[in-house]
């Protein structure tokens, strides 16, 4: 961008009189596009208040939204998954593909002033990601060892080439924690999880539970001159109508992950003061899913699971519950993940109640005289009213084929405990992020080694199949990317056949922001933009 001040000078020098009017117009325009320093952005903590503030420990949307302002990754994504430098300035892959070397940015400091070094990366890899991350075991399956030849170099030594690692090292999926604050502590209960120390553009200031989380400008940020904003304040507003009213009144300027109800979307799109953006969710690849508990009857029988898949009219589901915004699901890998999506050959579950009835009869659940077959429960992920509606839709679909379902309402910790700790559920309506690569997004729900007690977003269904494990583990050591893609196509077909998790819809999420909030990120992961380029129009 040209400096507005010099352009005015030039104009004035050239034409004294006629130029004066023109310069004013030009100056006005260039000022409007030049970032302004200062100001506070109020953002929504959505879909609810986080429980910790670092996505190294919990990878739920509301945590990642805040964490992404405080932490950087080694790399980040531009448009179309283009990999861009962040804490790593350069990376090279060896010729045999078995070594991935990162040059770290010099002079980066943690918010407490300690220098950021390769030791932090190695520590987080070994003691955090590989220990308590639901997906890292699959993502980094090929990693043999992480070496740190000097403080500014990290080398991932691989057993075999891997196409998934580089992209997974973004700050959301692989959040780097400061070694000096986490070493020799219990990571999950470390006090810095709620007063995080990162390297990002904003640093943690205060957290008033139930009300607000305040982040302030990191004056020592490595990208000099940034961020432009003084503060980012996250507010918790539980009621959807109140959230829209807060946007409308200007009390809130930024909200991600579908921050307002779909009924109000039309109003927001027509508004003179608000922007609605569907971009930036490509990496997230959000899906609405139903998970079956395959450990116990009735859903331990694949015929019952298939019957359910035939009993739910997905076209009506997306039309009614998402007002046509989402697309019916066809595979655990979303059709938007074009590189991996199998398309042809996926088992299809057309909406057909007669088929469902037949499958349930075969599975040994005949209709009793009162018209019902068996009773079950639906637990829905408490991510707002829409998920309750998904559950209500499913209950009616169940009823039509003689399954009596009771809906259970609970809060997020209760839901996590029920599904991932106690495994005491039959059927859930939940959410699954595809996270750019099926090795990150999908393995963790169908790999037997991802059955991890107490870890949210792991294989909660308890699905375990030697055939599946073989395919997944073959993909982890695939000699080249083509082979890995091919294997993931087979994995999808098998997952769709055994259907431990039923992809109901490819979700379409959106961001709502004030038109005054400029410079928001546009990359494939910009739902979790760091806001380092964001500024407020005066």
């Amino acid at each position, binding site marked *: 961008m040209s400096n507005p001040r010099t352009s005015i000078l030039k104009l004035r020098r050239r034409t004294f009189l006629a130029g004066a009017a023109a310069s004013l117009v030009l100056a006005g325009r260039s000022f409007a596009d030049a970032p302004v320093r200062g100001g506070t952005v109020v953002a929504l903590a959505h879909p609810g208040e986080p429980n910790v503030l670092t996505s190294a420990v919990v990878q739920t949307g509301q945590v990642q939204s805040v964490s992404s302002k405080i932490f950087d990754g080694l790399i980040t994504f531009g448009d179309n998954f283009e990999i861009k430098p962040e804490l790593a300035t350069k990376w090279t892959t060896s010729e045999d593909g078995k070594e991935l070397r990162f040059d770290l940015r010099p002079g980066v400091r943690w918010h407490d002033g300690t220098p950021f070094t390769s030791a932090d990366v190695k520590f987080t890899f070994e003691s955090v990601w590989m220990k308590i991350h639901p997906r890292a075991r699959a993502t980094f399956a090929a990693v043999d060892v992480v070496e740190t030849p000097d403080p500014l170099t990290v080398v991932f030594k691989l057993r075999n080439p891997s196409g998934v690692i580089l992209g997974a090292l973004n700050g959301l999926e692989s959040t780097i924690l400061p070694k000096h604050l986490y070493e020799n502590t219990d990571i999950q209960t470390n006090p810095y999880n709620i007063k995080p120390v990162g390297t990002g553009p904003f640093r943690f200031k205060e957290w008033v539970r139930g009300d607000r989380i305040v982040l302030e400008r990191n004056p020592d940020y490595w990208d000099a001159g940034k961020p432009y904003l003084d503060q980012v304040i996250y507010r918790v507003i539980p*009621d*959807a*109508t109140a959230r*829209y009213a807060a946007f409308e009144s200007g009390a809130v300027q930024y909200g991600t992950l579908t921050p307002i*109800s779909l*009924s*109000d979307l*039309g*109003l927001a799109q027509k508004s003179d003061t608000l922007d609605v953006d569907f971009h930036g969710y490509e990496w997230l690849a959000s899906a609405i899913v139903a998970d079956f508990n395959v450990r116990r009857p009735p859903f331990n029988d694949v015929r019952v699971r298939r019957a359910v898949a035939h009993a739910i009219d997905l076209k*009506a589901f997306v039309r*009614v*519950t998402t*007002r046509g915004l989402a697309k019916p699901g066809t595979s655990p890998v979303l059709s938007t993940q074009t590189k991996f999506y199998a398309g042809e050959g996926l088992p299809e579950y057309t909406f057909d109640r007669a088929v469902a009835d037949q499958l349930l009869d075969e599975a040994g659940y005949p209709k009793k005289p009162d018209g019902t077959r068996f009773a079950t429960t639906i637990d829905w992920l408490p991510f707002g*009213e829409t998920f*309750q*509606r998904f*559950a*209500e*839709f499913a*209950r*009616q679909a169940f*009823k039509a084929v003689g399954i009596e379902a*009771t*809906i*259970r*309402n*609970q*809060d997020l910790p209760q839901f996590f405990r029920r599904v991932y700790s106690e495994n005491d559920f039959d059927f859930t309506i939940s959410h699954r992020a595809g996270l750019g690569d099926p090795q990150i997004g999908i393995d963790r729900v169908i790999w037997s080694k991802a059955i991890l007690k107490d870890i949210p977003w792991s294989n909660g269904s308890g699905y375990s199949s030697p055939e599946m494990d073989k395919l997944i583990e073959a993909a982890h050591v695939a000699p080249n990317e083509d082979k890995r893609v091919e294997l993931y196509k087979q994995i999808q077909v098998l997952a769709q056949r055994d259907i431990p998790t039923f992809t109901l819809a490819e979700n379409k999420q959106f961001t709502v922001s004030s038109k005054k909030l400029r410079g928001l990120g546009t990359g494939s992961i910009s739902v979790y933009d760091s806001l380092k380029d964001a500024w407020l129009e005066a």
Partner: protein
Amino acid sequence: MTTDSERDELPTDISIRVPNIVLRIFRSWRKFPLSLHIGLLILLFQLAVALLANTLYPQDPFELVGMPFMAPGEDPLFPLGTDILGRDIAAGVVHGSRVSLLVGFAATLIATIVGTTIGLVSGYFGGWVDHALMRLTELFQVIPHFLFAIILVSIMGADLSNIILAIGLTSWSMVARLARAETLALRELDFVKISVVMGGGHLRAILTHVLPNALPPVIVSASILTALAVLTEAGLAFFGMSDSNHVSWGSMIGASRDALLTAPYMTLIPGAAIVVAVMGFSLIGDGLGQILRRGHRI
């Protein structure tokens, strides 16, 4: 509500007078105050709707029967329109009357039984029993009832029986104080004392002499409690604390509140039903109170 001066004039043959009041209620419909007439008509109408719900709308009210977001009158099939998921609002209102009545009556029953028992025991025995029970009652009185109900429901889980229990357990304190006040006056009267002196025992005295005479003001307060219970249920449901397996007016409002700006009819219609029902119970309470006051004079 009875005042102290009226209570002082209570004749000693009060035990025969109460059944008379009950009889009179059924005999002299025309002498009823207007508020009782209207209140009873509303209640009867509501009972009829609740009883006939399955005849009027045999389908499950949760069934997604039409296009979502149809305004009232848009389609003659759905006179009150459809909600966010395309459920018939008329069917919801009709079936919802059952839950609202059930919650109203059941919670009131719990509150009345608990409150009357504590009030009777406390007032009759006095002394440390009275002290202990009244401190307990005060404990329940000072905690805002609605917040208390929210806490109970979130701990126990939002199913219908828990909601009823939570509302019942948070609203008995008023009944207890009322029953205690009545008992304090009654226990000094001769027929109660004589009953004990004749060897009838305290339990007998309480049940056959004190209870029937303490009951009229309790009944009046019960109808107010019912109105409050219906309101509390709606309030809980508005905050998402409703049983998703039973349609109630409150849950209809709760489910539609994020469409408040675009389709206000979805919340206004069940809201109107709540207003009418609560008004009905309040009018009954008011009317019974008037009769009670009149009863003392006759």
